[in-house]
């Protein structure tokens, strides 16, 4: 009897495994069929991706997901958010659990190649910094020899901090905890002298987690380049193109002065670049395999890149970040959209 049950179970298992497709096919088709975009975000980093008490997500990374959903499906709310830790994020993308990873992820060579991923651009140019309690009286990262450093595992941060101390002949004691909440708690309890992550992340943690933000100071040195951007799987160029050009459309919109408010008027603009971008002049949508109003929908959902930045991390938010490198190329920043034609 026992053997029989095991036999039935085994054959059933084989049958299920054999019929389940290894992959959901082309990502775009899968999204259309499902009617939603599944977007991987962080477990809670204010300004980038953070759920409120009612479970509504907000932040730059979250807005970008809305923009992509609007471009593909015409509905910016057709997004399902999956909260991922730094360690879960790549496996979730590789295994097809999510369509798009929009989770302050640094673009590196290894991730772009050996992990089987593709970066679709840069939504935020960042650099790694150090935060210390003011009472320590530290003014430069070069004074940190021997410090205990709180850091999240599985990040480029963890490698950069080791490189920095190695390069400067200093030692440190890493305190490496997987959960962001637990690392925050350890730092604010005084387990570490220093907290290190991307400078924007430090600003976010200082503004929203610190019992008293004024007690902590972010040191001037940035020890690495951290270009953060959306990530997709290798081997689906069609979807990569859509994500990439959605980002360019948002940047181009800022350059051309298109905002959420004046979008309707801009549709009637005489400027051929604007007509092409907003789909008044057809062609771009078809080339991407989307409807012609893809960029219009994306901008209608979240505004242009500048609006997205100011709303989530800009001067009027608790994070109060400068545009800096994230300004348009025409104003001395690095945000530069390829021509949408």
């Amino acid at each position, binding site marked *: 009897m026992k053997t029989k049950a095991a036999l039935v179970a085994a054959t059933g298992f*084989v049958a299920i495994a054999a019929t389940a497709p290894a992959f959901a096919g082309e990502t775009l088709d899968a999204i259309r069929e499902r009617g939603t975009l599944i977007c991987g975000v962080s477990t809670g980093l204010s300004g980038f991706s953070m759920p409120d008490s009612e479970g509504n997500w907000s932040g730059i990374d979250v807005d970008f997901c809305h923009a992509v959903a609007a471009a593909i499906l015409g509905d910016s709310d057709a997004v399902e958010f999956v909260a991922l830790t730094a360690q879960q994020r790549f496996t979730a993308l590789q295994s097809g659990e999510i369509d798009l990873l929009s989770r302050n992820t640094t673009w590196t060579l290894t991730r772009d190649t050996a992990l089987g991923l593709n970066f679709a651009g840069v939504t935020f140019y960042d650099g790694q910094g150090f935060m210390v309690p003011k009472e320590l009286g530290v003014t430069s990262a070069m004074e940190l020899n021997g410090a205990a450093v709180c850091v999240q595992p599985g990040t480029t941060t963890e490698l950069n901090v080791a490189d920095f101390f190695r390069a400067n002949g200093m030692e440190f004691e890493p305190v490496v905890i997987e959960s962001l909440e*637990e690392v925050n708690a350890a730092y604010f309890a005084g387990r570490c002298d220093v907290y290190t992550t991307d400078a924007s992340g430090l600003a976010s943690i200082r503004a929203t987690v610190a019992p008293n933000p004024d007690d902590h100071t972010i040191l001037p040195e940035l020890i690495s380049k951290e270009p953060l951007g959306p990530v997709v799987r290798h081997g689906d160029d069609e979807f990569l193109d859509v994500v990439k050009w959605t980002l360019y459309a948002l940047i181009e919109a800022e350059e051309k002065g298109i905002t959420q408010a004046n979008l309707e008027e801009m549709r009637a603009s005489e400027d051929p670049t604007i007509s092409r971008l907003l789909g008044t002049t057809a062609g771009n949508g078809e080339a991407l395999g989307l409807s012609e109003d893809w960029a219009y929908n994306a901008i209608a959902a979240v505004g242009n890149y500048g609006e997205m930045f100011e709303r989530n991390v800009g001067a009027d938010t608790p994070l109060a970040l400068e545009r800096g490198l994230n300004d348009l190329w025409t104003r001395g920043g690095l945000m530069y959209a390829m021509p949408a034609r």
Partner: protein
Amino acid sequence: MAVDTLHVSDRASLWNDPRGRAIIYQVVVIGGVVLLFWYLISNTMANLERQQIASGYGFLDREAGFEISESLVSYSAASTYGRAFLVGILNTFKVSILGIVFATILGTLIGIARLSSNWLVAKLAMTYVETLRNIPLLLQLFLWYGVITVSLPGPRDPINPLPGVFLSNRGFIIPVPEAHLGYTMAAVALLVAIVLTVVVNRWAKARQAVTGQPFPMLAAGAGIIVGLPLLAWLAGGAPVGFDVPELQGFRYVGGVPIRPEFAALLFGLTTYTASFIAEIVRSGIQAVSYGQTEAAAALGLRKGMILRLIVLPQAMRVIIPPTTSQYLNLTKNSSLAVAIGYPDLVHVGNTTLNQTGQAIEAISIFMAVYLGISLGISFFMNWYNRHIALVER
């Protein structure tokens, strides 16, 4: 003719023959399992290849690039991923072995306390067991880690109970003897003394079995274990220097630190597992019928001898098998270290997994190591169990 018919009909009814049917079922089941694994493995390989994800164990030779806070072997960011795994495995060993030793001692004491005729002691032991074993271990670890990091003062104004001993939220820093020939000799002498004690013990038992003469083993053993290292220490020049920790800048220089992560994990694993071992010890002792004690008393054995020679040997047969499971649980539970940042195998392996993307390889190493440790503990405990099993004559 009749025999022939019988033979033919026997052959035709293979399906109706229970033995034949059993064989067919087993072949089909094994075939199904093999097919299932073959499907899963080939599917995985094909998908990895299609997504151009690198596979294989070659990454173990590459530079790791991340630091690990505590290590039993020399390790730096310039070491390889393979070395990082070794550090993680040794850290897992360290916390598991210490945890097993302490949990056994604590568990036995509490188990005996539960049977105490003193009402307060028995109830306290019961409260301990019922509280600790009914709260998830992860929560307990968070609690102990929080207790250490939040309630202890910072490193600049530590609690200083003894000269050279510092308690702060950076951990417990204790002085250790300075490197000196005298200390080394004493350590070697201690090892020699332990071996010598075992040898003398065997001789004493053999002599008692033959002649019936008892030997004062306790006094002799203590004398050897204390005396021999003391002599070696004196012969080595009787050094008294200690490496006393001192705060320099951010950290203590000198001494040996016991980090909060390690302390919280060891304490949590020990107290949690001890609550289970206490119940096992209690049940083991209660499993020996009281008639045994009475019979021993009737033969004129003293109380201590009754416990040592009659009750415990029989209780051990009940205690050992479930205790083995607890040792295995403790070892596997040590992987909860990731939650509070102790760099055990899983912690280091997860970081490696994330930096290299070699998920399947890293997980396969976890599984192999835990399987190896667990089988090792099982083999040892099974051997010990056979060793103390009741020999029927």
